[in-house]
Structure formats: structure tokens, C-alpha cells
């Protein structure tokens, strides 16, 4: 067991982790942050994506011990002071159906817009290509992001 500290959605949290504890499990089971989802546990689906120091990372592929001292943001953190324009746009464009992929997609899109506020369609497709969505056919997701990009 090792004690680590992370800045999770703006709050410093201290936790004990085993060397082989996966970040996704630690977030969900030890820290009660449920928006990162498990859809494959091997880096294929993107449902578990979180921002680590602003970079979108698959939390199923990261050991908790590696993120000691880092800043982690999930969608709970994004909407701390109300929904972001991106989240509002997701609602407006029906950019989710079952919603299970939505946290991961939102994280990828947030990273994209932070880096590139005016992405074109191909750049959007590229940015979310690691997030599998079985419901929407992606069109509405792309539209929701495009709409924000144009603003």
C-alpha cells in the first residue's frame, strides 16, 4: 500500500493504493467517482477516459500509483459550476442515447477544444475515434462538437 495524493476535480484527495491498482477502479471504487465507465479494460473503447493534467487518458490502462501528485478531471469536475457549453451542446444535439459513452466522449472532446478551439470535421472525428459509441452513429456527437467549435 502506498499513500498518494491527487487533485481530483479541484479537490486534493489522499488515498492508499496497491502497486497494481488500476486508476479506473480506484476512481470508481475508492473515490466514488462513477462517470468513468468500464467497457473493455484494455484501451479499446474510451469509456474510461479522464483528463490527467489536461490530457485525455484511458484510466483502465493507468496504474493509480503513477498519477501521484497529478491533476485528474472527470465530467463531474467539468460541470462543477454548471454544465459547460460542450455539455449543453450535447443535450441540444442529442449527442448520446444510452449515455454510457458520453463521459469518455466529453473528455476527448474537451481535450480537443482546449488544444484546438476551431477543429474541422475530420479533426473532430480523429479526436473521438478512440471512443466507441454503439448507439448514435456518431453524427450527432460530431454535430454537437462542431456547433461549439463554430462559436
Amino acid at each position, binding site marked *: 500500500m502506498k499513500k498518494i495524493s491527487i487533485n481530483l476535480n479541484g479537490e486534493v484527495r489522499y488515498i492508499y493504493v496497491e502497486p497494481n491498482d488500476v486508476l479506473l477502479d480506484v476512481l470508481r471504487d475508492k473515490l466514488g467517482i462513477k462517470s468513468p465507465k468500464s467497457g473493455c479494460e484494455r484501451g479499446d473503447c474510451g469509456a474510461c477516459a479522464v483528463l490527467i493534467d489536461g490530457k485525455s487518458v484511458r484510466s483502465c490502462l493507468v496504474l493509480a500509483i503513477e498519477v501521484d501528485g497529478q491533476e485528474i478531471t472527470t465530467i463531474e469536475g467539468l460541470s462543477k459550476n454548471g454544465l459547460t457549453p460542450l455539455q449543453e451542446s450535447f443535450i441540444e444535439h442529442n449527442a448520446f442515447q444510452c449515455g454510457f459513452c458520453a463521459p469518455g466522449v466529453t473528455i476527448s472532446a474537451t481535450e480537443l477544444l482546449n488544444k484546438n478551439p476551431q477543429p474541422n470535421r475530420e479533426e473532430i472525428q480523429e479526436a473521438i475515434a478512440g471512443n466507441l459509441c454503439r448507439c448514435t452513429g*456518431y453524427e450527432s456527437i460530431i454535430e454537437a462538437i462542431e456547433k461549439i467549435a463554430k462559436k
Partner: protein
Amino acid sequence: MKEYKYIGKPEIRIDGKEKVSGAAIYTDDINFGPDLLYAFIVESPYAHAMINSIDTSEAEKHPEVLAVVTGKDFPYKFGLYMQDRFIFAQDRVRFIGEQVAAVVARNPKAAKKAAKLVKVDYTEIPAVIDQMEAIKEGSDLLHEDLENYDHVPWFFPKPKTNIAHWRKIRKGETQKGFDEADYILEDTYDVPRYAHCAIEYHAATGLYDKSGRLTIWASSQSPHTQRHLFAEALKPLGFTHKDVRVIAPHVGGGFGSKAGVTMEILAAAIATKVQGHPVRIMWSREQEFYNTYQRLGVKTFLKIGVKKNGRITALDHKIYWDAGAYVEYGANVVNAVGLSAIGPYNIQNASIDSVCVYTNLPPGGAYRGFGYSEFLFGLESHMTRIAKHLGIDTIEIRRVNAIREGDKTAYGANMNPNGLLKAIDAVEKEIEWHKEYKSSDPNKVIGKGFSLLWKAPAMPPNASSSCFLKFNEDASINLLVSGMDIGQGYLTVMAQIAAEVLGVPPSKIRTENPDTDRNPYEWQTVASHITWGSGNAVKKAALNAREQIFDLVVRTKHLPKDSLYLEDEKVKCTQNPNFELPLREFVIAGIQMSDGTFKGGPILGKGTFLPEFSTAKSNPETGQGGHPNVHYTTGAAAMLLEIDKQTGKMKVLKAVEAIDAGKALNPDLVKGQIIGGLVQGLATVLYEDMRYGDKGKLLNPNFTDYKIPTAKDIPEKIVPIIIEVPQPDGPFGARGVGEHTMLPAAPMVANAVADALDVRIKSMPVTAEKIVLAYLEKKNNRMLK
């Protein structure tokens, strides 16, 4: 058409804020506290084997293990349509992954570790993994006891064979029809198995508490049906339905995989052995692939006879399903297809045999489209081939034969009002069918593909829905229904229906996922019937509440009932424009009279719906005489497909799909279904492929090896078109569209490939490799000639 205030409007989803903020709770997000236990399942490594013995003693010794259970603990069967399956294998396993034992421990790692200590001694026996082999005389039997299995009365198993059900349709005189034909086309088509790939795994947590209550939290399309099956299967333990409770949080995608009962029954059963502790069971992605329902594999033999003008004179459709080791749900797919494999055509003479065959592969079950995608691949390929042979336009031949209102279906009932011809016209226009499309790249060609679609809800004749509607003090409403929002937007649409009837905006209506203790009965959220069935129940509940409101106003204000109406959360009166009575003033506390007394009380609406005209009773030899399907939803689709001649690589440039929704209660949500469904359909024909080894083991149970589309793999453009020819018995005319949207994808691609390169791919998926090989062969043949 009447102008509605909330119906037909793109009202925003009522689960929107929840789902984008991280607040939405799915089954595995529920916190059960430190007493939670974890179950790990011991699965069969063989496709077919006898179990000689199971030794659990080592596993039981593990310090963190609380219980180890096997088939001996639960010698109970379950099955929605056919009771052919035990909760845990008894003396025999029939597919790789079948549940043999379970280990329950304080943490998942310990459960997994201890499960490895369970020793099972098997004797392998020959496995039958091909349905055509399985129906051969003398083939090894999977279920020797088939004649004793309980099943619904409309199934016809053939004892001492591997045939679990055989749906026959005999309409008109098929041989005579073929004799009259000018041209007959006969061929076979193959469709492999497919996986649903909902992104959320199956998950269930069971708690058998000290009071004797059994509660299951499950990711489910079927809370009430699950409760029913749990209660029935576990009846020997003393449960009645009231003791069993299913709570269904948000579902992260279903597509049929979470319909009926699969792994959830393990949670229910295991919980009874660790009374007082919640016990969680969750599949991994790998288990999702091999241990939930899959889409059944199928081989079809299709023969169609036509006159020179394209008019079909006869159809003979033989469909053999690889239904897997247990067909408790999948046999109904087979049944549904038997009833409808005539396609959306008016054909006088037809013979259909839809045969459900046991194999030693995982159990097949419901998958979006419920078997229709599979037979439409052959049928709609066939129609295009016939048109080409006759020199008729491929759309025209469909117009000539399209089924119209009042025409007879395969089983002799009248076809419902439908917009099939309108859909054909709309698609033809949008895709500019008669335009020549040419790629600017000389290595590439563009093909056009077309397909019709139709589908009926496949459900028992007594599948029913219900709704309670309760007003709150501020005239906001809680709507209690038991359908599931698996992403299609059900909760939102139900709110829109109640809103329309009661003049209360949808934003003031809360509809939540059900709990079988609190919410009234719903059969299941399958068959694309929920908008129609549950929508009817909600509408009736709202009308019932309105009736109570009006009665109270008549009784207290002495106004004529037929002058009253609801608008903007108020009761208003056509005869007295000054009369306005806000709902919030009386829907709970009643109306005060001049003597100070109150009349009325809380307004509670109630609505139920059961399609009383439906019956599955028919002649088993002909399928004639019943009314098994309540109605059909129809549509058409077309695409432009660009193909690289050298590599076979394909790109969908444009896809158009028109669906007759009857009435699109929320057009944005319908469009979302069209796009999502079409992409899922295209995935089955372009990307996905379940590969089994010859010993029945799935070789690609993960997203690295089983590819589903990403945002980069979608068509350049998809145009969804909504047609509205009202369904007379639907809520505001609506009928379902969810599954239909994926149906035309496969034949459309095959037809586009044939159009572009003149090669016909008759097995799914249609891969670049198949195309190139067929194309080269054709070129070589031509050179040889």
C-alpha cells in the same frame, strides 16, 4: 393533420442533464457498501461434454470465500419461450462458457482465484457446431429430452432431432405459382453470428435480505419479465412474485442483449445462498461476447418466381438458424421470421420454413431487428438480381410488388395502413437514383444500392403495458411506467404524450426507470413496440386523469363537461373565456366549496393496454388463421458506395433511409434512431464478424479483433427521412422504428457492390477481400473466354 403542442416536437431528452453531467447511475455505479460480495463463474471449457464430478472442497477452503454453488444447489430450469436451460449446468454442458459453478468471495480477485480451485471432471463428447450438420439424420442430439420441455403453444419442436421449433407458412399454391413464372431465381445466402456490443457490460447485483426479500438490480430491458422468470425458476425455494423485486437503473445500451434473462438469474440464485449480503456479478468484455445472447447465424435457400413484368408469382424461403445450445429466447426470433420472411411484398403463393436448430455454440437471442436483417439480406439481394435479369429498374420492381394496405400478409391477415410507397419515392428522390455517379478517381467506381424493409413487433399476443400518473402539489407529474429507456428516448416521449393530453409541459413531468415494486407492469422493452404499447397506456392514464379533473370541475363549478379543456396547466372553458382554474390549485388538495368543505383529492391516472385483437393460434402446418403480428413498420433505403477496384476498399458516400413512423412523436429522436441504426447495420455488413474455431470457441471476443465502427468509419452523409402514415391504434398514430433502422444495410451494400462491379457477394460480411477476389475471378474468366 392536427397541430399538437408537444407531440411531433423535438423536445429535449429528460435524461439529458443526468447523462452529460456524470449524474446518471448505471447498474454497476450503485454503491452497496462494504458488505458487498463478488461472484465469479466457473465456465465450461468444452462445447459439449458430460460432467462426471465437481469438487469444490479446495475453493471452499479459501479464507475469503463465503460460498461455492453448483448445479446441485439449483436444479431449476428457466426460459422465456422454451424451458430448455438450467441456471447452472446439471450433468452436461453444451457450449463453451456455460455456467458450471460460482464462487462468492469478499473481493473480486479472491473470487477469481478460488474459482480456479474448483475441479470439474468432464468427458468431452462430439460437438455439433453447424446447423446444417445438426439437422442431418443421425446427428448427435443436444437435447434428448426435447419432447418434455415446456414451451409456448405456438412452438413446434421435433423430438429426437435438433430442431427446437419449425415455423411453417403455406399461402396459396406455391408450385402453381412457380409454374406460372417466366423466370425463377434460386440461390443461397449466409449470415454469420453477430455480437450486440453494448458498451456497458451486463451487470446484476442480488440481495436476499433477512426478511426474505429478493431484490435484483440489473442492467435490463425487461424488469418485469425478469422478475417473473426469477420467481418461476426459484419457486421451489418458496418465492412468490411479490417477494421478488427488480430495480433497473439506466441501461448502457441493449440492442436485445439485455432482454429476457441471461446472467441476471445467476445473481438471483446466488444471492439466496448468502442471505443478508448483496452479491454482485458482472461480465467482462470477453464474457459479453461469448456469454450473452448473440444474433443467430443463418443459412437461407431462396427461390422466387416472377412474370416478365416483374410481378412475383411465388416465393419459397427455407431458413435454417444456428440457434445455439439453448433456444429459450432465440426460438422466437425464428418464429417471427417465419411469419414475415415473405418480405414487404404482396405475394399470393408462398412457402416459408423457418427452422430453429440446436448447435453447441452460445445461445442465440434477440438482436435489434430480431431476424429480419438476416432474411432481408437474401430477399433484397434477390429482388435486385431479378430486376437486373428482367431489365426492370430495381426500384420499379419493388413498387410493382410492394404490399399495400389491405393486402394479405403471409399468414392471411390484412396489412395495416403504411407509407411504403411514399418511402420508396422519398428515397429515390433524395439519392437521385437515375443520376449517373462517377468517381473522379479512375481506380474507383460508385455503386448504387437499394433495399426495402419491414418489421413487426414480435411479441406474445398478450404483451401488455401499464401506467400510473400522479400529480404533485405544484401540478408537476410523476409518470410511473416500466418500459426501459435503453437510449431511444422512451422516457422523454412518454412525457410528451402525457403533456399533450394534460396541457402540462414535458419539463414538468418526471419519468424514471422502473422498480417492479413501485411501477406497474410492462412486458419488456423489445420488439420496437414500447412507443406504441406503453405510449397507449400512458395516453390512457392521462385521459383517465383528465376525466377525473373534468368530473371534479363539473361537480364543483357546475360547468358542462364538454365545454372544458386543458391548456397551460389550467382548466379552461369554451363557453366562458374568463374561467381559468390552475391545476395546482386542486390536483392534490381538492376544490373548496362555499361551505368551506373540500371536494376531490389527489388525482391519480391509470392506464393499461393489451392488443386484444392479437392471437398466435393458427394452423401449425400453414400458419394461417391467426393474427400474431399487431402491425408492420415499413421503409426504404438507398446508398452510394465508392469501391476501390484494386483493393476492394469501400466508402459509403451517402446513405438515405425513410421510415414510416406513423407519427414521429419526437422527430429528433426518430432521426437519431435512423442514423444510429443504419450505422449499426452497416457495421454488420462491413466490419463485424464473429469467428469460431472448429471446436466451438469464439476466437475474437474483444474490440481489438472484433471491429465496431468508430467516428472515422461512418458514411460521409446520412439523410434520415420520416414518413407519417398514422397507425390507427397507435398513440397519436405512432408506431415503432428503433430496430427497423438497421434492417436494409446489408442488402443495400451487396446491391451497391453488384451495381458497381457486377459481382454478387452472398455471404456476410461483405469485405474488401471478398469483393476483390470475386472481381478478379470475374475479370480472369472474361479474359479466358
